């Protein structure tokens, strides 16, 4: 089997050819760096991706905090990961780099905040009301 893959590990986007021999051996060409080799290997066996999205924040200056998985997770888990992250409830303040999930769906990968969301300022009036 032979497959043409676009490496997404960096913005260059090398087009990599992967040939799988009958004994399962891989012949990989077209990558311009080692990360591309790993990427192509995963892509024919178990594709993986970084997931970036937003999670709702209570009481923050803005209603959302952007997050990312701090490593790749299996692509097939992405729909489940999205659903899980949508149910997450966190409160401000959040700092960029804060770990929001220690182990996402048993992958061992963390979910971290990628921006700082300070607590919303309440005026005295608002608190009395």
């Amino acid at each position: 089997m032979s497959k043409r893959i676009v490496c997404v590990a960096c913005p260059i986007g090398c087009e990599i050819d992967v040939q799988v021999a009958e004994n399962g051996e891989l012949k990989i060409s077209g990558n311009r760096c080692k990360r591309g080799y790993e990427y192509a290997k995963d892509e024919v066996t178990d594709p993986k991706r970084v997931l970036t999205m937003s999670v709702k924040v209570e009481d923050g200056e803005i209603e959302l905090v952007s997050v990312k998985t701090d490593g790749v997770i299996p692509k097939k888990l992405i729909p489940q990961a999205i659903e899980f992250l949508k149910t997450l409830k966190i409160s401000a303040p959040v700092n960029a780099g804060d770990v929001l999930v220690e182990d996402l769906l048993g992958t061992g990968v963390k979910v971290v905040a990628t921006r700082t969301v300070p607590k919303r300022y309440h005026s005295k009036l608002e608190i009395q009301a």
Partner: protein
Amino acid sequence: MKREKVDVLVIGGGAAGMAAAVQAANEGVKTVLIEREKKTGGVLNQCIHNGFGLHVYRKELTGPEFMEELWKELAETDVLVQSNETILQVLPKEKEVIAQSSEGMKIYEVGSLVLTTGARERPLNSLMIPGTRVSGVFTAGVAQKMVNIYNRLPGKRVLIIGSGDIGLIMARRLKIEGMDVVGVVEIRPEPGGLMRNVVQCLEDFDIPLLLSHTVTEIHGRERLEGVTIARVDESFNPIQGTEKFIPVDTLVASVGLIPQNELIEDFVEMDYINRGPVVDEFMRTSVDWIFAAGNNVAIHDLVDFVYEEGKIAGKYAAKVAKGEKLPEAVYRFNRGKNVGVMLPQKFTATQPFRMYIRPKKTLEKAELRISKESIRKYTWKLRPSQMIDFIFREFESLEPENRVIEIEVIEIE
């Protein structure tokens, strides 16, 4: 009117502007950074996807993370950030800049200026599609801000027009947030954005990409009810009989970015292909105390390059403000075959510099030629969606009597 003397004034607090201000301040001159919004960061703030920072910070970051890195750099300098301030006019003879803020008008007397005003989105109505005036039509950047900052979805069922990077990224983003993304239409026969975004934004999420297609009509009274799409021929004209009605309540347009240069375009030399000022390797425009960097010079693919340009502009703007005389840019590149967007256009030939070229069309394998001589070979596919960048140092072959250097990208076997 209040007057203020500044060594380096930087206009626009996105990635290029922040980098320029940091670098200028590090050269030891009084630097002011003007930002029209409440906070610096520019479009990075809403670009929550990753892929930034590999060149500059040696790690893969999201937009907000790249922005926070820049904030850290900025915090270590004496740069004065003036947010909520708009620049009304640059007066080239007086070397003055007029600003407007809530405190009123102000005049800056500047030593040098760095323009980092970025780009704005090309609106959909510039395509003259009949029926554009309904609600539910957004540019990709506006949709991105709604979803990523304000937590509002633009609708339920969406078609994306234009396959630029922001369009591709928004297709994925809206799908993740639960919208029904029916597809992306692209008038050209190849995607406008990076291949990696075609793969990880569309293919990964089963979003169809319709190449050589466009929207020919927009339907609806107040809210969008649907669009007609059609296949186009080689000259981008819709082919009769291929029209199809697609019911959608939202249309997101990613049909290009336009560099913003209103403040300087009347008196600096402009490049009508880049749609930005002509610059040399110091990012100096044709006016020797005005520098420019980032997406107002030309549309870039990567914030990392925008940042690098900002650093260069800031460094040399500071030198000029200190009274240093920079060498003259006596050489000029002439666009040859397949050269589209290109910068710099001029150079002094005193030190190696990074050069960027966007090929006009897809080339399987190519070589870069300077005055007909091959200086680099590309054994991989070059695409218009991706700038090539390289360090230009081939000064030995330059002849002083020939100051116009032809640069071309030629397809090879």
